[in-house]
């Protein structure tokens, strides 16, 4: 992303982003970090992933399972649960509503400006 996103704003939708990443493919900490870099969230300190994954696992949105990694020891891979997929869909729905609202605000501001 050309512009850095405020950390407060990121906090709000990081969970939804992680669920979407894990829905595409179960992944472990560093793998998730690389996916976040790929989609333009390189500015996010990857240490923040771990408490968030712990929270999501505690809430039953994701589950962890041990799987062999390429050329290394077993890693804990995460994948979304049914509750996690519901939460992700809710998040996308809310985001779309918010996006429409924000677009109206931006268009309005441009006209006034």
């Amino acid at each position, binding site marked *: 992303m050309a512009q850095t996103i405020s950390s407060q704003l990121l906090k709000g939708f990081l969970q939804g982003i992680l669920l979407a990443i894990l829905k595409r493919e179960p992944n472990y*900490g560093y793998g998730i970090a690389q996916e976040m870099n790929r989609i333009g969230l390189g500015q996010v*300190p990857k240490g923040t992933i771990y*408490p968030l994954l712990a929270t999501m696992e505690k809430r039953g949105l994701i589950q962890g399972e041990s799987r062999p990694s390429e050329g290394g020891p077993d890693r804990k891979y995460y994948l979304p649960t049914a509750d996690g997929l519901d939460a992700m869909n809710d998040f996308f729905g809310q985001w779309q509503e918010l996006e429409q609202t924000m677009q109206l605000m931006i268009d309005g501001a441009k006209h006034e400006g």
Partner: protein
Amino acid sequence: MKVEDLIERNNDLRPGLNKENKEFYDDFLVYVRTTSWLKDDIQVEEQLLAILQDILEAQKNGESARDYFGQSPKLVADNLLKKLPNDGVSFAKIILYTFFGYLAITFLPTMTVPGKPIDIGAYVVSAMYMTMAILLIVRTIGTLVYRYKASKLAGWLKNVLGILAGMLLLFPAFAMIYWLKTPVRINLDGTLGIFVIILFLLGLAVYNKTAKQGFLSKPVFFYIIFSAIIGILTRLPILSGMLENKTGQIILAVLILLACFISTGMLMWQAHRDKKDDDQ
């Protein structure tokens, strides 16, 4: 996986970190382990291992731990620990291991020479004090691990102050054994003494089996076992008479000194080997 296996795997992988990343991760590890006593220790160790594996992978891709993890590892650790479940059993284990470990180190060696009543009360009070002091020291080390580096005091001064503070805190525990007098005194001569020593040895065997990462190193273990064997031998009817003459007393003193030398030698060898592993 058991906690001991997770810790062992962590120990196996950590040497793969470069100097900068090792310093970063070691601080994180010390902080998390010393501030997570009330947390489920399996989950704590699983998180530490996963993070280590990720930092190693980041390192392979040319990324430093600090760049990957971020500038606030303490904040990440605090947030992570908040999310992990509590487990009072882990904390109880720490207290019991510390208490009985200290008691074994101090009590068994006093059993080498029979004939004097042993102030059990003083040993128990000393062990309780030492347990609290050690927990306080470990907790302080953990809490200060990030502040210690940020402090503007010279490195050598920080180390000296730390060691002095530790010694001041621990000294009363040893002083209590010699100067505290309680009414809980018992003569542990003869068969009763042998029974108590064997009981202690059985307790140590259980401790050794259940706590692979326990607080007793091999040299200390050797000294305790040696003291126990001497304690049993000096209480056997066939040998108990030897302490009544000077020759027997000298032989006993030499044996105890020999055990001290061997333990010290083992400790120094272990320290030398650990330093060699760190340097590699």
